[in-house]
């Protein structure tokens, strides 16, 4: 199904596939007609060969711009919604940006860019454009501290996993994602919708979950993706009972057995898969057997993705991986052999690897190392628990101790708190080394989720 030679996104917009839409809460466009339309008032040619920053106020405009600009610009940098203003100028310089496409031109008045092109949701008829080149796609990592890194991809690499398991024609998914499509996880879904002949319903920041779910239902979504934190939030809200997707996908964080089981219970007829991907390493693999972790047998080479475990850490070499970090002070993205060090730690238990946490997230308890995620996985398997966050608390005696914030399920009677605490502690004692047992458990109403959809750990 892939057109030969250099192809851009527009080349996947088959006008014969009718009824495809792209929408958010306020806008809607026809993906069937979009190849013959412009969101740039016909100014696309001015962007030919340029390094373009895509900085729109919403995902809908960003999607229109990506569809129009890919294959024309030299580079296209997707600006996520939460980019700090003081990082913007450095990123413009590092990526050698010389044009911006935006609906907020005032934001760039002082940026010294040669060209500012206005994007809007008012689509006008335009001649179908010929693809000129393979545009380099630049994305930002979601690094919570310091400057995000600029990661360079090609469309071919970004869509490698999609080509491998493209749905048959006639089976046209209506996708939704809790992610923002200007980040890797969300972009994958946007690309899946475009390339797989489907539709896409975008998320809307600040929209109450119940309204979001009502909108997803109204649009008849069949396929939906998000982080485990997104999914736990949905399960907690009670809004899950209102809809029934066919395919539920998790990525971006460790999918523990509790969240997989919770989703299976909420959506008994859906297939539920968790995917491993990162902005740097690309899509590694998807696991569809309903179990946490992944079979040890997939370490090695499969579907063009090579994986190895070095000192407990997953390394990936793949054509789906990014080709470089971009910028003046950019470090190497791979080792000499082309492997990306993912920083994700795994542990072999029986014939399955389990993710235990991030190498950078290890907390040190009197010299003993702890991954917060492995403790959360034990806490989360209690039926009364919806989600939890484990963090270090300073101690004058051991340097730090492990404490846990726990969100109970909506159905749990809060007066059972002491009993539930005792059972969680007893279970942790039975399953974990003594220094990993939370010293204290606090019940909280909610846990913060970052703009990238992950459990916020920055204050840990």
């Amino acid at each position, binding site marked *: 199904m892939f057109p030969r030679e250099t192809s851009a996104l527009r080349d996947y917009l088959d006008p014969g596939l009718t009824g495809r839409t792209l929408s958010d809460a306020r806008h809607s466009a026809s993906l069937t007609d979009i190849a013959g339309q412009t969101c740039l008032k016909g100014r696309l040619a001015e962007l030919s060969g340029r390094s373009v920053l895509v900085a729109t106020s919403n995902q809908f405009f960003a999607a229109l711009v990506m569809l129009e600009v890919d294959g024309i610009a030299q580079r296209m940098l997707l600006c996520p919604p939460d980019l700090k203003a003081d990082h913007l100028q450095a990123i413009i310089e590092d990526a050698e940006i010389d044009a911006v496409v935006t609906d907020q031109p005032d934001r760039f008045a002082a940026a010294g860019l040669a060209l500012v092109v206005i994007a809007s949701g008012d689509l006008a008829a335009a001649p179908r454009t010929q693809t000129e080149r393979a545009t380099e796609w630049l994305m930002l990592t979601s690094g919570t501290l310091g400057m995000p890194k600029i990661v360079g991809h090609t469309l071919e690499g970004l869509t490698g996993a999609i080509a491998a398991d493209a749905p048959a024609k006639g089976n046209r998914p209506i996708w939704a994602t809790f992610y923002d499509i200007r980040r890797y996880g969300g972009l994958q879904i946007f690309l899946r919708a475009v390339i797989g002949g489907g539709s896409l319903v975008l998320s809307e920041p600040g929209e109450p979950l119940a309204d979001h779910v009502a909108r997803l239902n109204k649009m008849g979504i069949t396929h939906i993706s998000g982080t485990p934190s997104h999914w736990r939030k949905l399960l907690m809200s009670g809004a899950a009972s209102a809809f029934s997707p066919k395919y539920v996908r998790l990525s971006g964080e460790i999918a523990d057995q509790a969240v997989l089981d919770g989703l299976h219970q909420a959506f008994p007829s859906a297939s539920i898969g968790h995917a491993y991907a990162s902005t740097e390493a690309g899509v590694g693999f998807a696991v569809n057997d309903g179990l946490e972790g992944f079979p040890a047998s997939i370490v090695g080479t499969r579907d063009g993705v090579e994986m190895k475990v070095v000192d407990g850490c997953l390394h990936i070499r793949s054509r789906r991986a990014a080709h470089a970090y971009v910028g003046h002070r950019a470090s190497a993205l791979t080792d000499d052999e082309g492997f990306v060090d993912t920083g994700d730690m795994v542990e072999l238990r029986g014939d399955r690897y389990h993710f235990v946490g991030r190498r950078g997230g290890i907390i040190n308890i*009197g010299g003993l190392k702890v991954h917060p995620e492995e403790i959360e996985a034990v806490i989360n398997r209690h039926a009364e628990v919806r989600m939890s966050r484990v963090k270090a608390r300073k*101690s004058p*005696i051991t340097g730090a101790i492990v404490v846990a914030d726990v969100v109970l399920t909506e159905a749990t009677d809060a007066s059972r708190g002491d009993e539930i605490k005792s059972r969680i502690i007893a279970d942790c004692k039975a399953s974990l080394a003594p220094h990993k047992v939370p010293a204290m458990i606090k019940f909280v109403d909610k846990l913060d989720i970052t703009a990238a959809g992950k459990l916020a750990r920055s204050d840990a």
Partner: protein
Amino acid sequence: MSVRLKIISAIEQIAAEQKVTLPPLEDNLSLHETGFDSLAFAILVARLEDDLGIDPFTISEDASFPLTIGDFIRAYENVPA
């Protein structure tokens, strides 16, 4: 409940959780003889900080750790809350 009683009660609760059998908690009992390891003391100090609002071992300049139950309790009693 007095500071002393709160401390004794917290020690007893942690002992139960950690399956430690405590000897009678007399003032001259050395902390070593309680059977608590450093993790158990770390938990105790953190819980007392939440309960009493103070951690005398972090705020004190000369943070010498007490040797007996009596020293331990006095460390809390001597800090203005």
